[in-house]
C-alpha cells in the first residue's frame, strides 16, 4: 500500500483522473475536448515500424508536448498527421473533419499548420516576404487576379501589418528586409514559427522549436507559446528541452519505438516507469523509489544528455 502511494501510476488499481481527460489517465486516453483524434495509425519503413499508434487524442486549447527518445517516431507522426507522409493504415480527424489522405496544403488550410525539425525558411526571399507567404486566402495568389494590383493591394497591406506585428513580437523586425538566408539558425526557427502564425492556425505543430535557438531568446519563445494558448490556439510541440516541457506544457505525450507509452500532466508523467523504460531502455535496474528522492530524476538526466547531444548535432549542420 505504501508503494501505491508513492507511485500511483504504477498500479492499474489506482484510477488517476485529470480535468482534461475523460475517464482514466493512461496512454491513448480520451480527452474531454480533443482537437485531433487519431486511430490505428501505422507507418512502416522497410522492417521498421516508425509509428504504431493505436489511439491518440490531442486536447484543444492546451499546450501539449510530444516527447520521446530520438527515433521514437515523433517527426514521422507529425508528417502523417499533416499530410506530408502517407500511413500504411490509420484514420484521424482534426476538429471533427477526417484528414486521412488529405494533401498537405489542404491540411494547412483547414487550420493545422506545422513547422519542420530542419528549418525550411526560404533563404532567397526576404524575411517579410517569408511572412507574407504564410497568409492564407490571398487574392493575389490567383493567376489572373495577380496581374491586377488593385485587386490585392489592400489585402497585402493588411497582411503586412500583421506580419510586422508578428516580426516585432519575435524580435525579427530589424531583419525585415534581409534575405532569410542571412539569419542565424535560431532566428530561422523563429521566422518559421512566426510565418506559420500568419495563417492564424487553430492548431500549430512545432517540431523542436527550441533546437538551436539562442538561450537568451528561449525565455521569450516560451512566452510566445503561452500567448498562443491565451489567444485560443492549440499547440503541439516536440521538444528535448525539459525546462520548456515542464514549464509550459499542460499535457505530455511520450512516444517510444513508434508507440504512445505514456501520457499525463508534466508533473507526474516524468515519474512514469514507462517513460523511464523509454529513455533508459527496458529492464533497467533503477529503483523506482529513487524517483521520489530529491536527487536528479533519471529521465531528466537522460533527456538533458540527449538534448545536449542533439544541440551539438544541430550546430554542426
Amino acid at each position, binding site marked *: 500500500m505504501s508503494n501505491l502511494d508513492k507511485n500511483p501510476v504504477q498500479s492499474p488499481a489506482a484510477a488517476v483522473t485529470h480535468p482534461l481527460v475523460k475517464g482514466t489517465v493512461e496512454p491513448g486516453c480520451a480527452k474531454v475536448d480533443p482537437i485531433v483524434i487519431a486511430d490505428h495509425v501505422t507507418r512502416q519503413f522497410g522492417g521498421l515500424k516508425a509509428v504504431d499508434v493505436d489511439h491518440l487524442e490531442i486536447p484543444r486549447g492546451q499546450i501539449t508536448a510530444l516527447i520521446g527518445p530520438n527515433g521514437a517516431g515523433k517527426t514521422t507522426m507529425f508528417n502523417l498527421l499533416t499530410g506530408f507522409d502517407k500511413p500504411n493504415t490509420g484514420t484521424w480527424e482534426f476538429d471533427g473533419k477526417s484528414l486521412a489522405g488529405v494533401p498537405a*496544403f489542404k491540411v494547412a488550410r483547414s487550420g493545422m499548420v506545422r513547422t519542420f525539425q530542419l528549418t*525550411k525558411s526560404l533563404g532567397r*526571399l526576404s524575411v517579410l516576404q517569408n511572412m507574407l*507567404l*504564410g497568409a492564407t486566402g490571398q487574392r493575389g*495568389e490567383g493567376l489572373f487576379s*495577380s*496581374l491586377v494590383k488593385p485587386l490585392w493591394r489592400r489585402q497585402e497591406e493588411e497582411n503586412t501589418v500583421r506580419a510586422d506585428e508578428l516580426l516585432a513580437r519575435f524580435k525579427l523586425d530589424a531583419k525585415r528586409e534581409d534575405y532569410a538566408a542571412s539569419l542565424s539558425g535560431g532566428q530561422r526557427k523563429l521566422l518559421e514559427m512566426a510565418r*506559420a502564425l500568419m*495563417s492564424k492556425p487553430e492548431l500549430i505543430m512545432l517540431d523542436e522549436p527550441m533546437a538551436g535557438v539562442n538561450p537568451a531568446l528561449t525565455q521569450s519563445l516560451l512566452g510566445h507559446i503561452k500567448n498562443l494558448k491565451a489567444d485560443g490556439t492549440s499547440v503541439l510541440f516536440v521538444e528535448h528541452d525539459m525546462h520548456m516541457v515542464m514549464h509550459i506544457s499542460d499535457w505530455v505525450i511520450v512516444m517510444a519505438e513508434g508507440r504512445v507509452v505514456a501520457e499525463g500532466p508534466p508533473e507526474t508523467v516524468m515519474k512514469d516507469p514507462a517513460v523511464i523504460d523509454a529513455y533508459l531502455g527496458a529492464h533497467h535496474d533503477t529503483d523506482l523509489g529513487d524517483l521520489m528522492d530529491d536527487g536528479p530524476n533519471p529521465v531528466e538526466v537522460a533527456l538533458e544528455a540527449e538534448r545536449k547531444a542533439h544541440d551539438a548535432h544541430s550546430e554542426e549542420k
Partner: protein
Amino acid sequence: MDWGNIFGNAIGEIISPTTAAYALAAIGLGVHFGYTGLLNFGQAAFLLIGAYAFAIPTLAGAPIIVAVLSAIICSVIFAFILGIPTLRLRADYLAIVTIASAEVVRYVVTTTGLTDFTGAANGLSGFKGTFAAINPIPEGRYGFGPFMYNEYDWWVRIVGWTLVVLASVLVFLLMRSPWGRVVKGIREDEDAVRSLGKNVYSYKMQSLVIGGVMGSVAGIIFILPRAVQPANYTTGLTFFIWTIMLLGGAATIFGPIVGAMIFWVVLSLTQGILYGAIESGALGFMTTTQAGQVRFILVGVALMLLVIFRPQGIFGNKKELSFSV
C-alpha cells in the same frame, strides 16, 4: 575584310526576329527555371510545337487567328502531358521527361509516315501568306544604315518584339505579385510552401504552361522569316536558350532580352570575322563549315566563363544567387 558589313550584320541581329524568338523562349524558360525552379530541358519542343501547330493549319487554309490559337492550345496540352506525371515528383523527373519528349516530338515530325502533314525531314514552307496579308505597312524598303528592311521584314520584327515586350510585362506583373512569391518559394523549398497551404502542384503546372506558351509563340516568330526545319529543334536549341537565360540572369525581366541580343550579336561578329579571315587567307587551315562550328565552341567557352565569373548573369542579383545551395 569588310568590317562595315561585318558590324552591320552584327548590329542587325539586335532587332532580328530570330533574336526576338530566342528572347521570348528564354523569358518562358526564365518563368520555368529562373522563378519556379522547374528544370525544363526541352524548351525546343515548345518552339517546335508552336511552329508546326501554326504552319500546318495555315497551310490547310485556316485563318491566322486559328493557327495562333492552335499553337497555343497544343503547347498547353503538351505542358500538361509533361507536367501531370512529373510535377508531383522530385525536380529531376521533369528534367528527364522534358529532354526525352523534346527528342520524341522531333522524331515524330521527321517521320516519313507524316510527310503529308509535317513534310518530314524537309519541313514546311509557304505559310507566310496569312501573316503577310495583315501587314499594315505599304510595300517598300524602309530604315537607315544596317536597319534597311522591306515591309514584311519590318512587320515580323514589330510583331516579334511587341510580343517580347508583352511577355516581359506579363512576367513583371506576375513576379511582383503574391503569385510570384509563391512560385519563388517553390523554387527553394516546395514542402515549406505546401505547409503554408499552397497547392504547389497547381502552381508548378501554371508556371509550366505559361513558360511553354511563350516558347510556342516564340516558335511562330522563329519561322516567320524562314521555313520550318525539324533539324532546328535539337537539344542544341534548348541549350542556346539556356545560355541566353543564364547570360542575362535567370530570374530577371531584362536578362533574357539582353542575353538574346548579346548571343546573336556575338555569333554574328565571330562568324563575320572568321569567314572574313578565311577568305583573306589568314586562316587558311580552316573551312567556313569548320568556322561555323568554332563559333559554337566559343559559345561554350563563354558560357563556362560566365558561370565561373558571373553566375548570376548580367542583371542577376549576386546575393540572391549566392545563397542558393
